[in-house]
Structures are given as structure tokens and as C-alpha cells.
């Protein structure tokens, strides 16, 4: 019987293998090896971590293919890379490079303010950010095989990731409690595909894996997101903008596995050195917020 590649089960399946794990932003092969040795279940290959993208300003684009390729050669774990929202050619380039997952990400400057990439059309799976259930379902409708909260990347401040995860999980709980004849109105209110609204009403869970992202800086932050319903955690600037990246990375991995065990979280949190400097969301001008990119 013929092999079928790029099927929904195969795309979604890789995200299922990442569950209970930590995906770390890296900008060099050396970073990637530190992440792998610390127990990362995948890495995100970038030219700059979000905190530096924020500081640099200007237009942020897909990383140099050479950077991505060298990181792919450095580690045996899956490698993800980011393309701009709606930039399907950047996505095709990343697919041609053979990355394992594409993040259509608000951290980069959007290429299209109305349309996201038609992700069904690719063999490589996509992960996309969301702020609430409606946004999650729009991305899944377009073919995202994995979802993450947007949070507010590059801030080291967990407050937005918490807000977004609560909005998604609360939205699911609400949907479950509705009666069948209320679902179309709810689909309209969420601006989400009716079939997915109906599916979640029946199953009570998202049809794809859902990670937390955007502001995780400490082992306790990571464990908090797991308690709120995340299947795993992305850590961007939080690791390589801290004082001791290798130790912090290993500690966050352990905190995600043992998130229900406060004694272990206490143990791994000892003596990690300075966390990244955080930013209060209120101090960021509205035009510089990343989470509001995409719809």
C-alpha cells in the first residue's frame, strides 16, 4: 500500500510528539546544542530572538536559510522556523529547506494584513498564534496543525500568555455548555468555522495540540501555563537572554514535566541567576504590540 505523506494525522502527529515538552528559540548552532542537551523537544531557528527583534525595530523577516540549515545540521531534534503572516513564499522556502514545522508568526512583520497562509496546501505542518478560541479555530480552519498562545513575545512577562490561554480554555468550556441550536450564533460571534465549533462542543477539546508562548521566563511561568491547559511551552527570549541559559533551559524542561509537583519546581528554580529583564505591557506603545498582528 502506498505511503501517504503530509496527511492531517502526520502533521498533527508531530505536534502530539512534542507534548509535555519545551521548544526553545535559538539563533546559532551552539545555542541549538545547548537547548538539545538541556532536554528541549524541538528548537525554533531564528536570526534574532524576539527581545532583540523588538529592540531593533524595522521589518523582521524569515531567517537567512543558511542560519536555519546550520541549526538543522547541529541537532537531531525537530527544527522549526518562522515565516511572516501571509508570506507563503517564505513558507515554501522553509519547506524546501526541510524544516520540521513552520511558525506563521506575529513576531515577524506581517506580509499580508488580511490573509494568512493557506496551510492545507503544504506537506510541512504549521503552528500559529492565537489570543482566543475564535482566532485558534480560524487558524485551524486554514490548516494549522498546532496552536500556541501569542502572549507578548520578547517581554519576559507572562500576563498576556495567561490572558490568551484562559480565553481559549474558557471559550472551550463555554462551548461545551451550549445547546446544539446555539452553535451557529456562537460560530458567528467567534468568527470561527461552524464545523470546528460543533466538533469542540461535542469533544470538549481542541482538535490540535495547544502550546503556551510569549513571555515565559521562569520554571514557575512554564508550570503555570501547563496548569492552565497548555500541552507544552515555547520559550523565546527567556532562555538565551538570561544569565545562565543552559541551567535555566534544563530547569524549565523539568518544570514542564513535573508541573504538578511544587517541590520539584522549587528545587529546579534555585540559583538560576538573573532571568531576562521583563517589560510591563503597559509601557509598550500600542503600535509596538506583537499580539495584535494577524486576526
Amino acid at each position: 500500500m502506498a505511503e501517504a505523506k503530509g496527511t492531517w494525522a502526520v502533521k498533527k502527529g508531530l505536534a502530539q510528539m512534542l507534548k509535555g515538552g519545551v521548544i526553545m528559540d535559538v539563533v546559532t548552532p551552539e545555542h541549538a546544542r545547548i537547548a538539545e542537551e538541556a532536554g528541549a523537544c524541538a528548537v525554533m531557528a531564528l536570526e534574532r530572538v524576539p527581545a532583540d527583534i523588538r529592540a531593533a525595530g524595522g521589518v523582521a523577516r524569515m531567517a537567512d536559510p543558511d542560519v536555519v540549515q546550520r541549526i538543522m545540521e547541529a541537532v537531531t531534534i525537530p527544527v522549526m522556523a518562522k515565516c511572516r503572516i501571509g508570506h507563503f513564499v517564505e513558507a515554501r522556502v522553509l519547506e524546501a529547506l526541510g524544516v520540521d514545522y513552520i511558525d506563521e508568526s506575529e513576531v515577524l512583520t506581517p506580509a499580508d494584513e488580511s490573509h494568512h497562509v493557506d496551510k492545507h496546501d503544504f506537506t510541512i505542518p504549521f503552528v500559529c498564534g492565537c489570543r482566543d478560541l475564535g482566532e485558534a479555530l480560524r487558524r485551524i480552519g486554514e490548516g494549522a496543525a498546532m496552536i500556541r498562545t501569542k502572549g507578548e513575545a520578547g517581554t519576559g512577562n507572562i500576563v498576556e500568555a495567561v490572558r490568551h490561554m484562559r480565553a481559549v480554555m474558557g471559550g472551550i468550556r463555554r462551548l461545551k455548555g451550549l445547546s446544539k441550536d446555539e452553535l451557529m450564533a456562537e460560530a458567528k460571534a467567534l468568527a470561527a468555522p461552524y464545523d470546528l465549533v460543533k466538533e469542540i462542543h461535542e469533544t470538549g477539546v481542541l482538535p490540535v495540540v495547544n502550546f503556551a508562548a510569549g513571555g515565559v521566563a521562569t520554571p514557575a511561568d512554564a508550570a503555570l501555563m501547563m496548569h492552565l491547559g497548555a500541552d507544552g511551552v515555547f520559550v523565546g527570549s527567556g532562555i538565551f537572554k538570561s544569565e545562565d541559559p543552559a541551567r535555566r533551559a534544563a530547569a524549565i524542561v523539568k518544570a514542564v514535566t513535573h508541573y504538578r509537583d511544587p517541590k520539584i519546581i522549587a528545587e529546579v528554580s534555585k540559583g538560576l541567576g538573573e532571568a531576562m529583564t521583563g517589560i510591563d505591557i503597559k509601557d509598550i506603545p500600542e503600535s509596538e504590540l506583537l499580539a495584535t498582528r494577524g486576526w
Partner: protein
Amino acid sequence: MRIGVLALQGSFAEHVEAFRRLGVPAPEVRLPEDLEGLRGLVIPGGESTTISHLLMEYGLFDPLSRMIATGFPVWGTCAGMILLARHSTAMPHPTLAAIDIAVERNGWGRQVDSYETEIGVPALGGPPFRAVFIRPPVVTDVGPEVSRLAQVDGGTVVAVRQGDALATAFHPELTADLRFHNYFVQIVAAARTDAARTESIALTTS
């Protein structure tokens, strides 16, 4: 009868759910004390390097090795197969060596090469099994004591059994077909019978 599912990272919830549907309690295992009272253990799919690190860090590797040496039933899917193999390429720590096979990690390539297909599994009976392969290991050597349970076109072995240790390069936990889970439940149930038989022999001879 309780079958533990190693829950350090990966697709452990899917295995727990499959056993729940079969009516078998399947507690999650994260620390050595969680191994107590189990009749068998599943090592799920996931990232084998991550699982390997956490097995070492939390002192699970040694007790598990000792249990496996005395015939404790284990089943590994994908990353689990890598951890149960006698030898695997590119691993940071030793493997549990429950099954005399050598595997190559990511031997099939990257995610673009991940695939699903149908395979014949005579040991399960019934129709072909829908097998989902996600960056799977490739079995490169099979020892004389190991049974080949399934292979894909081209002859690569994708499911093996040695004694009460089972390994699959694909993910039965990702599909609704429960036959592999049921097959492992049968192995575990029979292993208990063997132990009981040994006990009764010991009683009659004493």
C-alpha cells in the same frame, strides 16, 4: 492489572486514553515510586533525547533496567522503540536494551518524509493496521531471538517482539485501532500467569 505509561514527555495521554477504552487502568509514571505495583510499562512517542535525559535525571533508568532484565513487560512506540533497543545512533545516554535490535534515529528523514500507510500484522489478526510514522527510527539490525511482527514495503522491520518486550516504529496511540494496545494487554496478562505458575511450582516443590 495496572499498566504504567511513562509520562516524562510525548504522547503519553493518548496511550492512557487507549488503555482506558480497553478498561485497563494506566497510571502516569514520572518518578521511581510510580513504578510500584505495575504489571507493565509503555514508553510513548516523543523526543527520545528529552525522555532519555529525564529518565536519568529522576532516577528511573536504573530501576527500570533491573525490572526489564527480569522480564518485566514493556512496549515502546517510536521514541520508546529507540529507548528499548540494544543500540541506537545519536543518543546522549545508554538505552534500556530490552530488545536485541539496532536502530537509526530519524533514519527515515525529517518531517517531510513522515507518512502513514497500511501494514499487515499477522500477530494481530484481522485487516491491515493503519500505521502512522512520525520521524521514525529505522531498524537496521535484528538479533536471532527477536520476532519480526511487521514490515513495510521494501522489507524494513517496523514492529518487533522479544519475550515480553514489544516495540513499534509507528504510533498505534495516534489511531482509533486498539489492537496493538490489546495485544500488549494480553502479553502483560500472560506474564502474570507465568509468574503465578512459577509461584505454584515453588509451592509444590517446597
